[in-house]
């Protein structure tokens, strides 16, 4: 795990993730990150991804990807696709399986409301 094959090379050559990548990904993830956090993130992401690279030892050209296991087990295996999940579908019903939350209950955890709607800071910057 901690064997660093290219340890003799300078850090910048074997780095997968750059400072620019960290800034870009933080932006995608709606995170701000302080300067210290960015430096730490750069180090940690590179170390983790270097470890993840061992997946490339495997030839997966003809292997199908698997997003989840529940279409393989506990379903009607004689069927394919969404028919395997027939048990999970139901008729639409007006009230759903439980009544919708009353307005005031749905708002009770909100940081800011006007009693009817959630309130947020202005959306458009001038």
């Amino acid at each position, binding site marked *: 795990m901690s064997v660093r094959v290219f340890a003799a090379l300078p850090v910048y050559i074997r780095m997968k993730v750059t400072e620019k990548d960290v800034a870009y*990904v933080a932006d995608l993830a709606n995170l701000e990150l302080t300067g210290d956090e960015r430096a*730490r993130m750069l180090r940690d992401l590179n170390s983790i991804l270097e470890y993840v690279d061992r997946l490339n030892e495997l030839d997966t050209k003809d292997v199908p990807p698997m997003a989840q*296991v529940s279409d393989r087990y506990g379903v009607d295996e004689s069927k394919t696709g969404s028919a395997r999940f027939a048990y999970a579908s139901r008729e639409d019903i007006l009230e759903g399986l439980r009544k919708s939350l009353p307005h005031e209950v749905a708002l009770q955890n909100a940081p800011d409301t006007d009693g009817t709607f959630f309130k947020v800071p202005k959306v458009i910057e001038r």
Partner: protein
Amino acid sequence: MQNALTIDAARSAIQQRTTTAKALAETFYAEIEKDDPQIGAYLTLSKDRAFAKAAEIDALAEKGEPLPPLGGVPVGIKDVMVTRGVRTTAGSKILGNYIPPYDCTAVARLEAAGAVVLGKLNCDEFAMGSSTENSAWHPVHNPRDLSRVPGGSSGGSAAAVAADMAVATLGSDTGGSIRQPASFCGVVGLMPTYGRVSRYGLIAFASSLDHIGPLTKTVRDAAIVLRTVAGRDPMDATSAEVLVPDYVAELEKPVRGLKLGVPKEYFGAGLDPDVKNSVEAAIQKLAELGCEIVPVSLPHTKYAIPTYYIVATAEASSNLARFDGVRYGYRASDARTLSEMYRRSRDHGFGAEVKRRIMLGTYALSAGYYDAYYLKAQKVRTLLVRDFEEAFKKVDAIVTPTSPTAAFKLGEKVDDPLAMYLADIFTVTADLAGIPGISVPCGETKENLPIGLQILGKHFDEATILRVAHAYEQSA
């Protein structure tokens, strides 16, 4: 007296009126008040809710009516399961004041079976961690040695059972978070098959990997809790419509003739010698009980951790996008625009490990890296599942150590995320494959730290692993 208190013992003491559910809850709260300042297992106590339920059970007992299966039994719930009217934080500051308006199905089913919910249990933030040191509130100390971690992420759930601060608890397992802490604290921990227990009301971490399951003192108690919470729930489309057997009755079936696989990949370098000796002795014991021990191979095991940390973080980055400071949870007060409000709320609200995983997952899903990381990991997941499918053609269950070491010291791995991830090396494979697994205590190290034996089973065959674990427990 509490040391021996199992579900059946608690229930029958109340049924026979040698105690009451109220007195029992009071005893447990006294225990929590005395011991939890040193351990840190509980985050929130739900006394009103507990005593209301206890009163219901006592009324039944007074009338001489038969109590439900968990009648009056004090339980604790990992703080990633929502509880109506009781603060639920997922171990995170971002949900520091969150009072859920509804109940998690698993909790509702436990209560419907008579359980008294004492409170909510500490865990790594959003269940991300292997030591419970990532809790935003405070760490949990292992009741067996306070200088050591209880494991994670369900560290509070394991410690509460080990320290007699609950008869049974619910935890969640995404990469080993029930079985590894059970092993570290010397209790039983069961992760059911993917889809066996509804996740409705479980605060999502990685949806293709998240499971709810029990931590208990005995295998029989784990069977009782699973029987109570398992089964199709129309509120969770991923809960499977597969018949739930009577796990308790199944425990007594003989284990003689069962074929148990021992995968060589789980006994290589990095395995602590004390753990190895104890697990091998446990396997020998199972052989003496009439099980046939069969060497098997799970050749892709060494790829499980990297696969897991791509799949789990990718799903987490998506699941945790909902925390935006608008409808519930923490909101930064100094933001001038909506976008600034999102960023600052998430930045101040999430801890370091959660941000690390969101960043890793977002990176793995981002344009240009999706194929290299996420798609690659999904393909290797197929290979890991095939490993188990091949092995289960030859055997009825697989036995391994639960963790390569016993509990480590607090602070030992906090600065090295990768070292922390490797604590899950023997447990993540079952989450990726969706198969059930149980950890049952199997001895101690020279330093008197508990060791866990892990038993993995076929999909929806919890009955067999419970039966093997029970037979081992009874013989040990």
